[in-house]
């Protein structure tokens, strides 16, 4: 019987064993998958499996079981592998049947006599990248913020030009025991969507159910790590070799570079089991929330107090505007929960207008949000950025891969658009395309990936927050004008003071709160439906202009989010009234601002 350590340290042994046992029957493959699933289900077993996200690659044992939290970034073409093959042992002159599943390289040396019954199963490979996690441990906060480098800093091209010299040297040394992985990453283009991102990337080979995975899915993959240095034969050597073997000349140099990167930098992972991640908050158990009723209860108990604290915190950050703080909470827990034909339901794009221009206020605001949500990105909409960045992912046919863009984001990422950085000037073609893409993203929650000959639509679920001075040029579901009541003499000091005042434990509570509130179920009872309808008719009677269908849409979303933020999973009459009140307040505040602007000379 294999012990615990066997199935983690030597999963291939387990696979081989099971293969040998059920020699003839073809369902051994299923059994293997079942076996590992069962093992992982055992109490906390998955916690023992080392994670590729946390442990540096050179501490991990090759061919051991590892887990990897990731986002599917690209899908390669299916490959056929040798399912079963036979090899000759020249010394004993005996034949051995071996299984080639979950392996990159067959074991046979020179002695090998024809593969028999090569039952091949297609596998798709993915290049998932680590999704952006703005927090894993609090101590790391400093380095994390560096990871979230703004696009405006624009120090990306330097990394690429860093020359290919050093990694090549490391290649020849093959086992990358002493090389610092971060350094290599910068010179080899790992094709992350966001500039300045670091972190492990990995080629995951999928054996079963490869149709069920979609681009931009977040997964936790359990698989066998493969770092065979022989895989890292890159371009130059291949070029010479292609003359020798014409069958290998199918791929261009670029393609090889992408599809077979050095294993020391991009390890291969043979998937045994994968589970989709509902959220990527490390403070919550990764499995579905229903299974953790007790956990949920304990959080819900102090939900009201946490919400109040968070509201005060936001109010401070937003310079005393409690209404804006309220809306910010609603925005942060919004989530596209369903789609009716083309219409995404539940999105709540917030346009925070009236942000002070002079100081780096937006940056601080982003820092606050970044601390609270699992993944976030700040996009400065400066002319340079709009005109020079490729936001929409694009298929590169020479290298046969999907060139990532800023808008290739995992679900529930907070995208912070900083429109205060936009200056007057001309947008060129790219700029216009980018603005259109952003507009589509906000209105339909979809991104049209550019496949050169055609476009493909990929649905997404991204929370977009637009900070602008006036009304944003992009569409939004809801605009709120910031009305500061506090006027601290030194804004920067004030904001950092507010941030420092929050104890880490409290911040953790905020994080749990936001993730929990988002995941709650929500219903509307028939009774309330009636009441809402009545209300709508009533409102239209008074003034049809003030209440359009669109307003009702928004009102319903606000009511939903408001209820969720209070931990209620159904709409109450009270909640509806509150939502209405909130909307009235917001509209008056925005209109006030309009009047004010109108009066100004």
């Amino acid at each position, binding site marked *: 019987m294999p012990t615990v350590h066997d199935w983690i340290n030597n999963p291939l042994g387990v696979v081989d064993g099971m293969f040998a046992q059920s020699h003839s029957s073809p369902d051994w493959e299923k059994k293997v998958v079942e076996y590992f699933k069962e093992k992982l289900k055992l109490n906390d077993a998955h916690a023992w499996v080392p994670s590729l996200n946390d442990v540096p690659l050179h501490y991990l044992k090759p061919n051991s079981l590892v887990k990897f939290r990731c986002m599917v970034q690209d899908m390669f073409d299916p490959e056929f592998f040798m399912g079963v093959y036979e090899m000759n042992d020249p010394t004993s002159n005996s034949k051995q049947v071996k299984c080639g599943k979950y392996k990159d390289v067959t074991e046979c040396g020179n002695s090998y006599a*024809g*593969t028999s019954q090569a039952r091949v199963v297609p596998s798709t490979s993915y290049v998932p990248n680590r999704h952006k996690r703005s927090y894993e441990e609090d101590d790391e906060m400093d380095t994390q913020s560096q990871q979230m480098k703004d696009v405006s800093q624009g120090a990306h091209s330097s990394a690429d030009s860093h020359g290919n010299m050093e990694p090549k040297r490391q290649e020849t040394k093959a086992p990358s025991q002493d090389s610092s992985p971060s350094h290599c990453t910068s010179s080899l283009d790992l094709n992350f969507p966001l500039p300045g991102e670091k972190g492990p990337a990995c080629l995951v080979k999928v054996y079963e159910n490869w149709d069920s995975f979609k681009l931009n899915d977040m997964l936790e993959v359990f698989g066998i790590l493969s770092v065979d240095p022989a*895989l890292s034969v890159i371009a130059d050597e291949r070029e010479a*070799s292609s003359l020798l073997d014409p069958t290998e000349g199918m791929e261009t140099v670029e393609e090889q570079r992408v599809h077979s990167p050095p294993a020391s930098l991009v390890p291969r992972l043979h998937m045994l089991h994968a589970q989709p991640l509902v959220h990527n908050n490390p403070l919550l158990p990764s499995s579905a929330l229903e299974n953790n009723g007790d956990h949920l209860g304990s959080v819900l108990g102090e939900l009201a107090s946490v919400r109040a604290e968070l509201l005060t915190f936001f109010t401070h950050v937003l310079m005393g505007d409690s209404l804006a703080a309220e809306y910010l909470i609603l925005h942060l827990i919004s989530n596209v929960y369903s789609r009716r034909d083309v219409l995404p339901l539940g999105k709540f794009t917030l346009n925070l207008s009236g942000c002070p221009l002079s100081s780096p206020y937006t940056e601080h605001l982003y820092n606050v949000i970044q601390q609270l949500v699992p993944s976030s990105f700040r996009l400065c909409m400066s002319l340079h950025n709009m005109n020079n960045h490729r936001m929409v992912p694009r298929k590169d046919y020479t290298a046969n891969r999907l060139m990532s863009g800023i808008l290739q984001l995992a679900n529930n990422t907070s995208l912070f658009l900083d429109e205060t950085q936009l200056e007057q000037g001309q947008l060129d073609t790219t700029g216009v395309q980018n603005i259109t893409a952003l507009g589509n993203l906000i209105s339909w929650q979809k991104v049209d990936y550019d496949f050169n000959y055609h476009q493909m639509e990929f649905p997404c679920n991204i929370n977009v927050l637009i900070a602008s001075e006036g009304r944003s040029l992009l569409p939004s579901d809801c605009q709120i004008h910031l009305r500061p009541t506090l006027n601290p003499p030194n804004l920067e000091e004030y904001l950092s003071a507010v941030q420092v005042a929050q104890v880490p434990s409290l911040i953790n509570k905020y994080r749990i709160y936001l993730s929990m509130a988002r995941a709650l179920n929500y219903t509307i009872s028939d009774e309330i439906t009636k009441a*809402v309808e009545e209300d709508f008719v009533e409102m239209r009677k008074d003034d049809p202009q003030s209440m359009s269908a669109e307003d009702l849409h928004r009102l319903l979303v606000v009511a939903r989010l408001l209820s969720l933020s209070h931990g209620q999973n159904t709409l109450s009459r009270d909640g509806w009234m509150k939502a209405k009140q909130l909307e009235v307040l917001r509209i008056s505040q925005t209109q006030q601002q309009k009047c004010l602007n109108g009066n100004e000379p």
Partner: protein
Amino acid sequence: MSSPSSQSRKRDPPTPASEDPLSPPSQRSRAHDTSTELQPMPTSPAMDNSLFSSPMAPRSVLQSEIDASSPLMYGTPSSRVEGTPRSGIRGTPARQRPDLGSVRKAPQVDMHSEPPSGDAAAGSEQGTGAAGQRLVIWGTDVNVGTCKEKFQRFLQHFTDPNSKEDENAGLDLNEPLYMQKLDEISVVGEPVLNVNCSHIQTFDADLYRQLICYPQEVIPTFDMAVNELFFDRFPDSVLEHQIQVRPYSAVKTRNMRALNPEDIDQLITISGMVIRTSQLIPEMQEAFFRCQVCAFNTRVEVDRGRIAEPAVCRNCNTTHSLALVHNRSAFSDKQMIKLQESPEDMPAGQTPHTTVVYAHNDLVDKVQPGDRINITGIYRAAPMRLNPRQSQVKSVYKTHIDAIHFRKTDEKRLHGVDEDGDQKLFTKDRVAMLKELAAKPDVYERLSSALAPSIYEHEDIKKGILLQLFGGTRKDFSQTGRGNFRAEINILLCGDPGTSKSQLLQYVFNLVPRGQYTSGKGSSAVGLTAYVMKDPETRQLVLQTGALVLSDNGICCIDEFDKMSDSTRSVLHEVMEQQTLSIAKAGIICQLNARTSVLAAANPVESQWNPKKTTIENIQLPHTLLSRFDLIFLMLDPQDEAYDRRLAHHLVSLYYQSEEQIEEEHLDMAVLKDYIAFARTTVHPRLNEEASQALIEAYVDMRKIGSGRGMVSAYPRQLESLIRLSEAHAKVRFSSKVETIDVEEAKRLHREALKQSATDPRTGFVDISILTTGMSATARKRKEEVAQALKKLIQTKGKTPAMKYQQLFDDLRGQSEAAITKDMFDEALRALADEDYLTVTGKTVRLL
């Protein structure tokens, strides 16, 4: 000839697969193939190849006969003998078929040891076959003789009276089809015979199965058969090389995603889009060696991708003295093509798959990137070595397809009228389901409510869009000089902002396979039509097509139609009536088809719809363009309590109903899609007698309404619209006849749309001239009245040659009971000036 194979059966090759001749053929053949490729080992398969490759025999004989000593010789073996007078099967060189795999070439030795001609071998084999021993090619169940005989019978007897393929145009459908094609070959001299696999299937299912499973063995046999037949019939004809059979559309057309290990070494047909083609790769077919010592020449054929360099010179026995002479070796053309699955086949949320295709010889450069093609070929897999210097292999295979036949699927669209360029194939169940749905009496209502369920009400608009999705019947009147009648229905939606017009457009765009979505604000004339670009690499001029051309046979959704610049809008004139697009730019003059329906949405100029103004005044679009829309709908925000209540209910339920509930209520979007696709391709309704009477009546009625008030309320364009709408409605019912009920509905919808958009706000009557001339008849009448009043006024003033402008205006205002604006006054003055009654110079008015 028969001995090697019979031997092999007795000897039993070491691979276990061959022990069981009845095991699935794919397995066997694959095992066979990989073993030969992996290791140049003299196992039995290699020996047995000699049997099947006997048709190649004439070539090798021929090559050794011909003196090819000229250093300029470079090319395929066949090119060397170009121009040599010859005829008959012996005289015509066979051309190597790298598409069937160079792996399969038998060693030279065997060729010579065998009877040189294919038919002799076949004859002997048939003899033995008759004697009770059935000989088959190793690893397959193909008997060369029977196979050949079957195929010859197929060629001689197959007829396809119902053929619809355009390639068969001009052929007598009741005569054997392929014999006519052979005649064609003898006339044209292009030695390629394309064979439709589905024909073989209907003729002989067993032969078809063999062809699909063992293409490498069966296709050469076919070649052999066809050549015998051909040279029997035309013994004197001269061909460049022997006829090659190219089978196509293997019935089991596969999606790229569905390719499986089971398909390896089988004949497959897949569709896709070419994304990249490589440069030409010369592939060595035969190496030429010359001894450095005695200048003795020798040739070595490529065997399984390798050239066995002779170590010893046969003439002088010197070791390692032979050197390769590149110039005198034979090469064949090869090209790598990357194929990507077509966007329609892709499941949502995944990236497209790509496949590598190798084209050989004359198939090279047949396709360009961007082409949509169906390719028939043999699926191959080859192991990959980790390092060329080691024999350790990776556990994965490289796969590619050796192309045998290309067929462009988008070619038809460029120059053809039929619309089934990409006919979707429906399963029988699906068709039955759709037909059942069509039989329901309320199918029209059902479908229209299934359209964009998230958008509330606007039933008539949805019905209009539904009819647009189905389209009318295409009629060709080009013989009478009128050209094609437009079958597409164009619809304009105008109305208040925020009435979910864009959402409706988005929905339609997502529903139809060839839809385009553009915004009037962002698109230029070039983006809509087509432009000419210089390719930076090849310096060639390339025509890039825009949204309208791309949505040929689809729907072009144009949002913010009113924001479009005039020059951009002007290109729509041609598209919306003639359904073509003319380009004269940078040396390219052409006319492209743009048979697209236009679904446009426009906002009123004053951001809110002004009910006191006409449609034209509200949206400020030229009436020439407006009259090209069949239906113009207003999407207004009705201010009515009952409506509000229903709207609220609809929206709220949108937010709390679960997916399942919604689905129960409405038809699935996929069903709707299929329904439309099926109706568009299969139903072509024609007017029946009653319906045409009803249409005539309807038109006469429409004309009558206006004539009472001195207005024209209908033009022939409206009649055409009515016809189109009734046809579309008949299509919804899957009916091949347009009946009265269709006309009734078309009339109702048309009237409904007119009521909304062509109502004269001053009189409340429907007035078509608002749309056709931009001005309502009453407005025109009023203008005349003012002019007359002014004239009278001037006449009463007596003989004053000049008047003050302002004073005249005041006088007129004082006299008239209706309020007269300055514009009206100016207009009246202009009208009088046109009559040469007066002139206006500055502030004075002079009589003439």
